């Protein structure tokens, strides 16, 4: 039995032990070469959720050459749990702005879908997070991905047959509208980890323990290989530091980070958060899919240095700190 199989058996609890053994190992093997050319990633300042979010988001989308004309777009927020005292979920106003931006850019249809990993009542979670208030037509455009009809795909993460929600499979473009947070198993949860929410609870349960069996970094990468027509908008206006993704503290970074190379978007977010992306395991594993190295990423809008906001890291991830 190898280490991954052990983690598989242990599920969530053992993931901590696994992570503890994985970080801080040095030297790491060299990063895989990424795709040809550079990836554009836009960083836009937004001081709060009260300001006009549509304008900077439109600027970012245009800077990244986002083309949604005639497409069926699925916005995938990060809805996890609700706690008014902190900042767990993608803010409803960011989703509302993204909805408007996709419409203005000519999308044929804009849908919203999410399948939270712990809570069963997705609609109540959305209500608490004020999604119904921010989007008057929310119920009409929203799909609970945990309870959507599904279709099997072959050979996902070594599984002969793995089920995904039809709403996600049929989208021409999935926009991961994620939250900028630290994560106590993965180091950070950004646009790529957000794809855990497309795995249906009706088949895999709450939590989606099968993904822990695949391995958390491995599952993040496999999901992003499966869903490759994607774009990212990371809500870093107020993110979460410390013991994320649920029990951390709010941290204002005052930015959106956007792009079509999700690896590059997450690497950029890490640099903003003061995390070395080249030491984050899932990004290392995804280095053939997109760009991790700063030299391969063309920053548009703001530069990383001008918005850098170090997020507090829990002890076991201090070694990820960008020097």
């Amino acid at each position, binding site marked *: *039995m190898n280490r991954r199989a*052990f*983690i*598989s*058996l*242990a*599920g*969530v*609890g*053992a993931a*901590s*032990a*696994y992570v503890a053994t994985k970080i801080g190992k040095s030297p790491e093997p060299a990063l895989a070469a990424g795709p040809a050319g550079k990836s554009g990633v836009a960083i836009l300042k937004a001081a709060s959720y009260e300001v006009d979010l549509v304008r900077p988001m439109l600027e970012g989308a245009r800077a990244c050459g986002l083309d949604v004309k005639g497409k069926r777009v699925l916005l995938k927020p990060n809805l996890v749990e609700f706690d008014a005292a902190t900042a767990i979920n993608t803010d409803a106003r960011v989703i509302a702005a993204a909805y408007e931006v996709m419409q203005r850019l000519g999308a044929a249809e804009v849908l919203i879908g999410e399948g939270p990993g*712990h*809570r*069963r*009542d997705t*609609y*109540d979670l959305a*209500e*608490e997070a004020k999604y119904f208030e921010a989007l008057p037509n929310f119920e009409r455009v929203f799909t*609970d991905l945990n*309870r*959507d*009809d*599904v*279709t*099997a795909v072959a050979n996902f993460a070594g599984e002969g047959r793995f*089920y995904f929600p039809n709403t996600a499979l049929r989208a021409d473009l999935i926009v991961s509208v994620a939250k900028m947070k630290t994560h*106590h198993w993965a180091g950070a949860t950004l646009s790529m980890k957000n794809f855990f929410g497309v795995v249906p609870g*009706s*088949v*895999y*349960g*709450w*939590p989606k*323990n*099968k993904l*822990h*069996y695949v391995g958390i970094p491995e599952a993040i990468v496999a999901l992003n290989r499966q869903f490759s027509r994607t774009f990212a908008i990371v809500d870093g206006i107020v993110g979460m530091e410390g*013991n994320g993704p*649920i*029990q951390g503290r709010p941290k204002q970074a005052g930015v959106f980070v956007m792009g079509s190379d999700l690896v590059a978007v997450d690497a950029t977010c890490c640099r903003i958060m003061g995390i070395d992306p080249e030491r984050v395991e899932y990004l290392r594993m995804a280095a053939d899919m997109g760009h991790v190295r700063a030299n391969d990423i063309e920053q548009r809008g703001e530069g990383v240095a001008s918005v850098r906001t170090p997020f507090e890291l*829990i002890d*076991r991830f201090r070694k990820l700190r960008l020097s």
Partner: protein
Amino acid sequence: MAEVYLARRRDFLLRTQNLDGGWGYFPGKSSWLEPTAYAILALHGDDGASSELTRAWRLVESWQLPDGSWRAGAQVPDGTWVTALGVTLCSIRGDARDMLVKGVHHLLRIQGAERCTTFRLMELFGLGKIEMDTSHPAWPWRPGTSSWVEPTAHTIVALKRAGKLVHDRWIWQRVREGEQALLTRRCADGGWNHGSASTFHIDAPSYPESTALALLGLQGRPIEVVRALAMAREFWKASTSPLASAWLAIALQAWGENVPAPDDSKPPREDTMLMALQALAHPQGNHGLLRTRAAL
């Protein structure tokens, strides 16, 4: 008022049954065992729904797999935790003994993967450590994965009901172990969440719906659930989730508490599973079908 509340949900269920006899999670969607099971429980004993119930039962019969488990849905032929619901339905009908026995034996074979020998040896030799007590076998969402609160609670209810009809001492042994597993996974606040009471030694909060389900599984253990029942009463007052409220009403009534009829002023969501659970949870609904005795 009760008549209007229940009739609205009954009519919804009758109107949204699929041609194959099952129900989707939402109207117009393909059939899944979970909403189908709750719809059958909600309509149980309704003479005006006998043809719908017959069609639904035929689907449930056809979805049992050769190993005794039940498939999750029309598009998902895999046997999952919903086997517990299949067993509960068989116990309630009382005339499907072969299916019941096969289902029970399947449930008795299943346990969370954290119990496998290799894992336990690796844990013993310090190659990994988890923050939960894994000494009591419980049930996973899918075979071969770890055990969690909700599938464990549903399976305990199923086995307690089946234990009246199928005589096998392992049933009660597994029930007692399952109850212990639930008790060891209680959150510090006295309730339950999905099954991780703490992460990195930081306590996690409980959820109303998981607390309700754990209380259903722990029927007959009054001393151990005094705090949890108090928590459930608080959740009942405060919860904004219609789903959680329905499960809390079912659980509190299973524990002999009176629950007031729900407010029906807000139009219900077009959500089949929720409608069925709300009908089941109503004081005049069939919530008693999930009432069980204590483990022997």
